């Protein structure tokens, strides 16, 4: 009965495995789960022998003053995307209901 939902099930299984892997990794070690961007920056510092702080922006940029503000902006970014997706899918769904033949 599920064969028309194969892709949904596969995706759920994928996400499930992903979460399990995360739980395993995070419980068994002292990983920081820092962003790979930052880990990459540290690697650059290591390769050049310069401290991370010595890399100053070439073009001055706005830095969110705290993690809270940063997460707000990231949430806004995702919410913006979510609104668009919902809007369009709903619009198409309405179109389809009106013209059931297509």
């Amino acid at each position, binding site marked *: *009965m599920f*064969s*028309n939902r194969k*892709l*949904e099930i*596969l*995706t759920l299984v*994928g*996400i499930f495995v*992903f979460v399990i*892997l*995360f739980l395993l*990794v*995070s419980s068994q*070690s002292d*990983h*920081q*789960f*820092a*962003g*790979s*961007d*930052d*880990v*990459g*920056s540290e*690697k*650059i510092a290591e*390769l*050049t022998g310069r401290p991370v702080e010595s*890399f*100053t*922006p*070439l*073009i001055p*940029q*706005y*830095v*969110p003053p705290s993690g809270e503000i*940063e997460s707000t*902006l*990231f*949430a806004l*970014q*995702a919410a*913006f*995307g*979510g*609104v*668009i*997706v919902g*809007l*369009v*899918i709903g*619009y*198409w*769904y309405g*179109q*389809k209901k009106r013209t059931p033949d*297509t």
Partner: protein
Amino acid sequence: MHIMEGFLPWQWCLVWWLVALPFLVVGVIELRSLLRRDREYLPLLGVCGAFVFILSALKLPSVTGSCSHPTGTGLSVMCFKPYITAVIGFIVLLFQALLLAHGGLSTLGANMVSMAIGGPLVGYAVYRLLKNTSVNLYVTVFCVAAVADIVTYIITSFELALAYPAAVGGVMASFTAFFVIFAITQIPLSVIEGLVLALVFKYILELKPDLIEKLGVFSKEQIESALASDAHVPEEKV
């Protein structure tokens, strides 16, 4: 996959900006002519762009003990080809550079080359390879999305390796080092991204098969057979 502001010597910033700019310019021209031709594509463009926005905002933990984000460019590159995808990627990266200090204006060129251009281009090559074969349409979407994602990070590693060759072993040694940080972390994420985008594509196809056909993403026969296999089972249940 962002190269942080200040972490790339200005010479390399310039090189990658010069590589990225033509794509951006052609993309804007293509985008304008597409929308002038037919406003019907605008909603689909919105959905493709929106997934880049959503997925690149999600920093997910990976098996290597660090976090990274998917890119979401696979859908867009299949529906609208690489140039327009470059524009979408540019908008997302610009937002993150200006407001989030993820990447910066000087490294925007390099970040575009990896996320908005290089990854999608290789994804597009995969799509062209699989398009006219008997490979299931959703498998194709999965492969395109996953490849576009992982290649983005391979290119980032390469960009950094070129700018920072290791004292011992040169470019290859430092490529390996960055590859471990970026690309290995990305493997599980790209699998998830592939699955999610294949699922999204399924819903788009169910609602708007005509649009996908008109854009020539897949042929009428491929779309019909995919829809038929989806719709087959509810009839059995009745």
